[in-house]
């Protein structure tokens, strides 16, 4: 029982990331009809917003402290971040400590801008082109974005720690009245899950309860009719693209303590997110979320020794490596619309 609970929890953080990326992909696909292979790159850019903020916060003055020497015997250079100079020791280090959550504020405008530029500058010209062209051009864009990040930040992962109070693990089992040490779970992952749930809730609420959202949903269902009503859909869709970019970016921001940002993380997540989108059903928002969590949890279950052993016994070894793809293949074949997709979407 506790083993199962643990696996569900373990699957939640990856599942949240999948769900958030897939949600953005689906928004873009559903509203603009564009298959965006550069969406993983947006996730990556989000994560690098954290790196950038961390670098900015750590900009330091260097003073030589003659009273101390370093291990080579030279006078010790002491670095003091400007932040500390300005706000004092306590507030300054607190800001640095909380750089990941702070990066959310930093990332939102950046991501909206990136999304806006991307849509107006490139994607807009591909609405009428075949899906293959959309895939190709966004694939090219993904390479370009990834290489720019690599040129600016290097090829190695850059650690971006969570705030200190979230760094350890806690005994989740005790919380819910189970035996001690049964289910140990890192704090940050719980934060990540809660954050994702919040974002997903916000997106749905936005689409459900605002006029803007209603128009967008109507547009997703039937673009032409809404266009005929004289509503300027294109403008709203641009904003939608910005929002989708921001969602992917925030997913990246909060994921950075779990997985140190590196330039290829976008591509790594992209492939899986696409699998999530098709499993959920192309164009279905609840489907994307459901499939994201389901696949994340499935992946984590597949890595349990018992499960592995079972599949090895039926000659399907390393099930944990291939489970997602296997599920995707089976779903696409037996239920091509995915879990919750509408008929006929992208069938041509």
């Amino acid at each position, binding site marked *: 029982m506790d083993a199962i609970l643990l696996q569900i929890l373990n699957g939640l953080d990856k599942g949240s990331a999948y769900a958030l990326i897939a949600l953005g992909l689906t928004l873009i696909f559903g509203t603009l009809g564009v*298959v965006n292979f550069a969406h993983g790159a947006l996730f990556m850019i989000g994560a690098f917003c954290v790196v950038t903020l961390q670098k900015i916060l750590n900009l330091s003055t260097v003073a030589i402290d003659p009273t101390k020497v370093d291990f080579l015997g030279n006078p010790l250079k002491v670095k003091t971040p400007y932040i500390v100079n300005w706000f004092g020791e306590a507030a300054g280090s607190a800001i640095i400590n909380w750089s990941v959550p702070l990066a959310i504020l930093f990332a939102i405008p950046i991501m909206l801008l990136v999304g806006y530029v991307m849509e107006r500058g*490139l994607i807009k*010209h591909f609405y009428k082109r075949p*899906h*293959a*062209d959309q*895939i*190709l*051009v966004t*694939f*090219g*864009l*993904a*390479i*370009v974005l*990834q*290489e*720019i990040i*690599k*040129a600016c930040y290097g090829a190695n992962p850059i650690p971006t720690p969570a705030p200190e109070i979230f760094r350890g693990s806690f005994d989740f089992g005790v919380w819910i009245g189970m035996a001690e040490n049964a289910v140990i779970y890192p704090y940050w992952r719980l934060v990540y899950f809660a954050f994702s749930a919040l974002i997903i809730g916000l997106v749905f609420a936005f689409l459900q309860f605002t006029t803007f959202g209603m128009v967008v949903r109507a547009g997703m269902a039937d673009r032409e009719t809404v266009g005929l009503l004289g509503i300027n859909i294109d403008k709203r869709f641009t904003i939608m693209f910005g929002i989708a970019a921001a969602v992917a970016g925030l997913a990246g921001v909060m994921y950075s303590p779990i997985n140190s940002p590196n330039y290829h993380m976008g*591509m790594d997540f992209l*492939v899986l997110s*696409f*699998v999530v989108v*098709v499993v959920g059903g*192309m164009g279905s928002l609840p489907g994307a979320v459901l499939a994201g969590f389901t696949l994340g949890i499935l992946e984590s279950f597949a890595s349990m020794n018992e499960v592995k052993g079972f599949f090895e016994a039926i000659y399907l*070894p*390393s099930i944990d*490596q*291939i489970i997602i*793809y*296997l599920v*995707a*293949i089976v779903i*696409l*074949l037996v239920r*091509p619309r995915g879990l919750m997709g509408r008929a006929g979407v*992208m*069938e*041509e």
Partner: protein
Amino acid sequence: MFDKFQNNDRMLMLFFIFLVLAGPILLAPFGAGYPDLLQRFCIFGIFAIGFNILFGLTGYLSFGHAAFLGVGSYSAVWMFKLLTMNVIPALILAVIIAGLFSLLIGFISLRRSGIYFSILTLAFAQMSFSLAYSVLTPITNGETGLQLTLDDPRILDAANTSGSLPSTNFFGLTMNSTAKFEFFGMVFQFNVGFYFCAVMLILAFYLAMRIFRSPFGLMLKAIKTNQNRLNYTGVNTRPYTLAAFVISGMYAGLAGGLMACTDPLAGAERMQWTASGEVVLMTILGGSGTLLGPVLGAGFIKYFENIFSKINENVLHGWFSFLPDGLEDLIVWVLHFFVGKGWHLTLGLLFMMVVIFLPGGLLQGASHIIDWIRGKKQSSSTQISNPNSMPAE
């Protein structure tokens, strides 16, 4: 000039054979005349020609073709380990295994079209990649990659007493033997491995040309433009797409086998989806659906990859030293993002440009330029709009 060749397949073929066979001489002045690079031109040329038979003709965009390349490499190396260092059995096995593997994957993936097909192939390729790294380690040797060892059986070969690893050969002709000639200070290298790959490339090109000009090829083109109409015309499209998929998988297997012939080792990274992406880039860049395009695209990418990744800041400073210092530094600073390790950035940008402005690829660009020059020359004659100006074949 291209139109003329298109209308005249024999000329095109002769032109192609000449270009390929004279490669070591023609490319030496451009710093690309050495065997390793020339071999890669041929191998990736074959890979791209095969990919084009699927994507260029039927429009099915596979993101998993690297898996067949990888399978071809593994099969060939196993043949070198078990049977003989002669390349022929290795290549035969590589093509057969890749063909069977693509039959299996194609059979399943082709039940869907459009993006679903792309994702299915992607999923299969990633699955193969993961498996090659994990469970299949007895066959693939995991992360180390599959290599030759001294105590491999090689049952058909004479016992190896030299104490060093044997090299691949074509009935005794060693693949890595090279004849060098110096001529006016330039070195020309004629390598057995290259000529072997070159012959394979020519055969592959010839076969592709026959397919393009056949009723079968016509049906594949019809699938790309209107699959529904073809169904209502009494044609069962599934076996056609499957045949195209398997043929292109076999081409990929041949390319993978040749990779092993020129350098007998095989690793799983050849199967990763970025490698599949590369062949897509080559085909589109050159011009998908055209005969010469994919080969040109492959050559173009491999050549510039080689040149660009060798350029570093010192070289750049050398080039721009005639400029005032500040300007020189600025230009070098800007450019250094695009060369050396930044080659992929250049490639990505170039690729985007091609997709945006030249959906027909570089070949279309070339024919536009030629048309433009011609149009200028005969500005007096009336300009007739030519619906065939796209290099459709």
